[in-house]
């Protein structure tokens, strides 16, 4: 027996092999039926995003935070995304190296994901993988993005709380402001506070945060941590819990989650239309002849696009 029922039952029981295989199916785009069945069981876990520049200590921080949650008797799902090579399509997923304390713990599930061509700091299927962990009974799902630069901000659309991790050497805060990274932060962490310059960075961040648009009733904590020594982690855990309370008390949690679900639906529709296009409408050969004619100025791209779009609309009637 290998049907959806069977897999769903295994997942809901929290069987690790089943969770892992379902995530693979999700990653490989063959799990729509399964996801439809999983979805009713999701919505209980609290999703936390951890983002920041390469090497800022995101994985080390996730490891330390997860340990504290475990002490509270919580179940933790972790998804750690690393980039796929745009050339080979391969990936070296090394975030686990920083999480060896957790690897064999009963109440932890860690999954490394390759970004697979996605440019927003996550893989396209990370959100769905997080839902799988949600259904598996995790209390918290921690999502670590790839090391981000300036525009990889997808995480904000996936999580309830976004933690932005910066380090003294990752440049002055002006860069972070430019990046939009500050705009998605609910909590800021200056990690590697054992190094010079962290206090100055905190000051600069305070100043920068005062200038950004802020929500009332949330003070946007700026914390100092030394993840390798597990210093400051207690504060971070408290801040996370305070943010959950803030979201639920103000009704923001529901509002935010609805906005994200709407966005998810949009994305899925786009994907479906795109694959419909690729499979049924835009045949490679026809397109090449068209482009030929466009190149010779017999046709123009605007009219061609219009015609193709019309064909799709007609076809779907």
């Amino acid at each position, binding site marked *: 027996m*290998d*049907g*959806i029922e069977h*897999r769903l039952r295994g997942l809901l029981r929290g069987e*690790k*092999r089943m*969770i*892992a*295989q379902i*995530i*693979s*199916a999700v*990653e*490989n*785009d*063959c*799990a*729509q*039926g*399964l996801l*439809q069945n999983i979805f009713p069981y999701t919505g209980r876990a609290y999703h936390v995003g951890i983002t920041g520049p390469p090497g800022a200590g995101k994985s080390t921080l996730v490891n330390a935070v997860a340990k504290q949650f475990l002490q509270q008797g919580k179940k933790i799902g972790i998804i750690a995304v690393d980039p*796929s*090579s745009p050339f*080979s*399509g*391969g*990936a*070296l*997923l*090394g975030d*686990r*190296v920083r999480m*060896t304390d957790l*690897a*064999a713990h009963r109440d932890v*599930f*860690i*999954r*490394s994901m*390759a970004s*697979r061509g996605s440019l927003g700091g996550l893989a396209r299927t990370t959100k769905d993988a997080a839902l799988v962990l949600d259904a598996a009974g995790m209390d918290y799902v921690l999502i670590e993005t790839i090391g981000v630069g300036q525009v990889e901000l997808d995480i904000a659309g996936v999580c309830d709380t976004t933690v932005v991790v910066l380090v003294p050497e990752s440049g002055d805060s002006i860069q972070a402001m430019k990046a939009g990274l500050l705009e998605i932060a609910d909590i800021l962490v200056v990690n590697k506070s054992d190094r010079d310059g962290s206090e100055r960075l905190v000051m600069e961040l305070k100043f920068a945060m005062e200038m950004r648009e802020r929500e009332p009733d949330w003070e946007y904590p700026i914390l100092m941590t030394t993840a390798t020594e597990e210093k400051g982690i207690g504060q971070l855990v408290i801040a996370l819990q305070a943010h959950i309370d803030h979201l639920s008390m103000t009704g923001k949690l529901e509002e935010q989650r609805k906005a994200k679900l709407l966005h998810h639906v949009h994305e899925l*529709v786009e994907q*479906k239309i795109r694959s419909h296009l690729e499979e049924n409408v835009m045949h490679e050969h026809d397109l090449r002849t068209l482009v030929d004619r466009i190149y010779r100025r017999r046709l123009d791209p605007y009219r061609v696009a219009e015609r193709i779009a019309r064909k799709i609309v007609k076809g*779907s*009637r």
Partner: protein
Amino acid sequence: MERKIRVLVGKPGLDGHDRGAKVVAAALRDAGMEVIYTGLHQTCESIVDAAIQEDVQVVGLSILSGAHMTILPRILKLLKTRKAGDMIVIGGGIIPADDAKKLEKMGVRRLFGPGTPTVEIVDWIRANAGKVGKSGKVGKSGKVPRHQTVKKKKATAVARWRKKK
């Protein structure tokens, strides 16, 4: 989409040389595979846990400490008890021919000696991974059938909407 080959590259035991493991990991990445690197000094338990959570097809272990006769059988046994006996276990390191024979009998699928060209390892994994899913078959497009659960008949929201029109 074709199912990606996922390989765990692990370094169980006490020796602290992971150059070889890293070189292999990089070669597999460059060959388009997704490589989960677990770092040094891993226990067999944590390696098996990682392999299961990462749903890899191949577990590659680099062992230079001479402890291969304890570590590899233990990994095989743990995988079996965790219902993951279908994962392919391969090893690298200095392993005497006698031991190698014994290990292969136990179920280690392949052992690569020191200095094996990485391309040989890449080719072997390409030829062998993904072929033995639970059902023992690979689907048409290279997908492993056990992952193909989309019921075609279950109309998607879009199709239903289309029908109504």
